[in-house]
């Protein structure tokens, strides 16, 4: 073995090792083999909630240091925290003990503070705020849960009446099960529509956003009314035809001069009046639907209407429940 080449190889090998070590430390810690000491702040708390030495200090979720020491002081506990050099913390930044997971690992969160304020120096005390205890939050959630339960119970009672297919929730359930994909589609459409409404796109959007559209709306409602009148006629016709079918007579004359038919006609007239009234009040519902946050109750009303419409039109062939709901709402 040539001695010189051996020396060169060993030398190169050693330099390679040094270089690799340097690169590794460089990429891990900016070239410092031992971590440069940052500065230390004191954070006082009434309760540290299990914050311990080595836990992270994070500013807006980014690690800026670590807890060096926790100690008991007079009537409070103090955490000495080491902040990495170069991290600027203004004197109005606030520290609080946060929980990074439900399993109980903690970190000390520090807010940004005002950038123009003087910066905290080594040994300064950082402002703190009492920490929300996760167990308290969970207890509150518990009581909230029971309240919600009772509310939902009431709502359930309120909705659980009527309907030939059981209460509303059951039907909704069926409806959702049967029309899952369509619902999804509808909801995404709804989102689109809502977005458009927000942006003022489309008629409804303009309707909501543009007060000038109000007049047009009124006109539309008027048209709606006349349409309802048409519907009234149509209903009358249908009733007549139905009555004809029932009585077995084929002619309008019979219809006019028969007492039973007259009575039927009276009943249908009443029905039609009912419908008209409801359509009239429907204007208010639509208004509420758009303006009022008591959406649910309105929806309930619509649902009931839809319900009845379904009853009335049950012989008109299969119409999807979603179609009805969508029609009733829009």
């Amino acid at each position, binding site marked *: *073995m040539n001695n010189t080449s051996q020396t060169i190889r060993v030398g190169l*090998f050693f330099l390679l090792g040094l270089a690799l*070590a340097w690169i590794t430390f460089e990429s*891990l810690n900016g070239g410092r083999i031992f971590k440069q000491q940052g500065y230390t702040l004191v954070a006082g708390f009434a309760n540290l909630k299990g914050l311990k030495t080595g836990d992270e200090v994070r500013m807006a979720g980014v690690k800026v240091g670590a807890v060096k020491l926790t100690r008991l002081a007079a009537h409070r506990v103090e955490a000495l925290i080491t902040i990495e050099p170069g991290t600027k913390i203004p004197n109005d930044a606030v520290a609080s003990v946060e929980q990074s997971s439900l399993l109980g690992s903690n970190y000390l969160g520090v807010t940004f503070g005002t950038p123009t304020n003087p910066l905290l120096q080594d040994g300064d005390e950082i402002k703190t705020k009492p920490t929300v205890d996760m167990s308290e939050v969970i207890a509150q959630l518990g009581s909230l849960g029971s309240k919600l339960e009772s509310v939902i119970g009431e709502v359930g009672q309120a909705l659980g009446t009527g309907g030939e297919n059981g209460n509303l929730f059951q039907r909704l359930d069926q409806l959702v099960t049967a029309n899952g994909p369509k619902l999804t589609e509808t909801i995404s459409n709804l989102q689109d529509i809502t977005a458009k409404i927000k942006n003022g796109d489309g008629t409804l959007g303009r309707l909501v956003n543009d007060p000038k559209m109000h007049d047009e709306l009124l006109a539309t409602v008027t048209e709606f009314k006349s349409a309802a009148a048409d519907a009234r006629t149509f209903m009358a016709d249908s009733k007549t035809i139905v009555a004809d079918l029932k009585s077995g007579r084929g002619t309008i004359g019979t219809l006019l001069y028969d007492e039973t038919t007259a009575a039927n006609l009276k009943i249908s007239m009443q029905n039609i009046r009912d419908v008209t009234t409801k359509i009239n009040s429907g204007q208010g519902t639509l208004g509420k639907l758009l303006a009022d946050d008591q959406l649910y109750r309105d929806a309930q009303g619509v649902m009931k209407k839809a319900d009845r419409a379904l009853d009335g039109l049950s012989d008109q062939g299969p119409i999807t429940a979603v179609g009805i709901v969508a029609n009733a709402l829009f």
Partner: protein
Amino acid sequence: MKHLLAIIDSIGCALVLLWRSAKHLGTLPRQFPRFIEQCYLIGYTSLPIVTILLFFIGCVLALQSGYSMENFGAKQFIGTLVGLTMARELGPVMVAILVAGRVGSAITAELASMKVYQEIDALVTMNIPPERILVLPRLAAILVMMPVLTIIADLCGWFGGALVSQFTHSISVDSEAYFTALKAYMKPHDITDGLIKAEVFGFVIVLVCCHIGLSTRGGPREIGASVTKAVVTSLILILVLDYFVTKALLLAT
């Protein structure tokens, strides 16, 4: 009892050997060529096997941890796991095991044959302490070479893990995410701890192998027995010391 005494006796002899070698520390500069030769034999020639072995250990570590971490959705921590395991544990230990098998056995075989063929006796009569020219350069060389081998081993393991994480279909953690996770929880002292461990292992391996080689008695047959004994002892010591050194380093941080 007899075995216990034998073990204590060996420890004592090894320490005496260390002391005798340390006494000649001043002669190290003029033994520089010998030191370089040992560096070459211990470090340079171990490089290929260390590279290949640790690369595949990194690969298999990523593969296994990917498989098991998938169950609880912690795949993004593969980099952290492979990185820390390589730097703190597998890097130093595997390098030490390779060095014990490759270098320790060679040292013992060489010294045992020198002892059996009276070369050691010749050195003694020439008033050249064997510790000075046989043990000291080796100890110095291993102290210089172990960190180099270990840092190379660490990096090979990390890159092996990164490759496997990226190109294994069931893991598919790209190398950027892998190295981000690796860096996020790796502190510089994790690497220095690993290097310290490697130093301790290397030092103990060479000391033990020299001691066993030099205390060989009998004929050529004993050379083989000594080599076996040296490698087994080294391996046991590596793993036993590993626990205590790790514990001490954890306490120190």
